[in-house]
């Protein structure tokens, strides 16, 4: 299975096991979702909604479907994974494609906390509270990986940045070293080791604490989670990161294996240890 790759959504997408036709379809899928959901394209549907002054906007079926998934993620994580943190992430300085982001002497802008409970969806109508901006990037990328995998007729994998989904089995390299075999599921790593920058002399990153509207002060640098889909793994990894110290137990309560890297320690929850013990013993 020789993988193919292309750039989309600001990351390299790697596909293994696709025919040429399937690969083209996967590329189109990523490009289409990026056109709809990019924060950095002024003509994207997301940008139009975020710039709307009325709060009420008619949205496409795809937009509504993804927004519902994002709101469901917020509900299932008690608001930790909140799609209404667009203002907060811009306030931290992440207002352009990460490749074009530079350190900035100006202090962070005033921020807004999460307000996902005030978002309303009725049919194709979406209502967001005034001044709120949606950021659906995390959900969209993970969903794109899952959806792309479904475009493959046989076994294979699709990876984009910290997200990977596998049909059948594949050996997956983990950030920071090590590997594991992932079978019929998804794996996601959320963290601050790659995407961080300086604003007003302070380190900023993209994992926003919805309670403060500021970059999280979680003790973790990276959290890796495996689950039945990439979307599920991505949501759980972000939530476990933002939860801080209770993160490992929170994952165990949901039966999800997770590995947590801090500055000076590595913590694996029980589900992770149970799954990988044979290798460690060998």
């Amino acid at each position: 299975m020789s993988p193919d790759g292309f750039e989309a959504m600001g990351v390299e997408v790697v596909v293994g096991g696709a025919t040429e036709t399937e690969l083209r379809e996967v590329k189109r899928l990523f490009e289409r979702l990026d056109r709809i959901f990019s924060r950095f394209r002024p003509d994207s549907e997301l940008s139009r909604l975020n710039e709307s002054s009325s709060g009420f906007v008619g949205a496409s079926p795809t937009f509504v479907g993804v927004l519902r998934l994002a709101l469901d993620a917020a509900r299932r994580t008690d608001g930790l994974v909140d799609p209404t943190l667009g203002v907060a992430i811009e306030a931290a300085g992440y207002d352009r494609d990460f490749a074009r982001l530079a350190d900035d002497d100006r202090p962070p802008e005033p921020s807004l906390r999460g307000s996902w409970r005030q978002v309303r969806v009725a049919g194709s109508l979406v209502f967001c509270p005034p001044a709120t901006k949606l950021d659906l990037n995390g959900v969209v990328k993970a969903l794109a990986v899952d959806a792309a995998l479904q475009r493959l007729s046989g076994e294979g994998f699709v990876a984009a940045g910290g997200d990977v989904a596998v049909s059948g089995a594949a050996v997956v390299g983990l950030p920071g070293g090590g590997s594991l075999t992932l079978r019929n599921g998804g794996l996601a790593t959320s963290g601050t080791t790659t995407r961080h920058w300086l604003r007003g002399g302070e380190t900023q990153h993209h994992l926003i604490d919805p309670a403060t509207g500021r970059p999280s002060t979680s003790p973790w640098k990276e959290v890796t989670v495996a689950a039945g889909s990439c979307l599920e793994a991505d949501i759980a990894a972000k939530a476990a990161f933002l939860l801080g110290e209770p993160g490992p137990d929170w994952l165990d309560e949901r039966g999800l294996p997770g590995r947590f890297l801090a500055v000076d320690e590595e913590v694996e929850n029980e589900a992770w240890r149970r799954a990988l013990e044979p290798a460690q013993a060998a």
Partner: protein
Amino acid sequence: MSRIEAARRRAGGVKRALTVLAAAGLIVTGLLARATNPGHAAAGTPATGASSSVQSAESESQGSDDFSIAPSSSQPQVQTHVS
């Protein structure tokens, strides 16, 4: 028509208009309450014009019940990074 009678007619017109407005407001409020709750459309409420996409987005994210991770000492087929 006396001035008092004209005033009564005007008041009656205003009252009827207010009644119609109140009824319309109630209907709209009821429809919105049925169609929405915080962050979600109500369960069982058809998402007009969007149902196929909602089902599509949800089906695209369907997870596998039999996912697993296992140890490996082989060379990775795919390297993941940090999001």
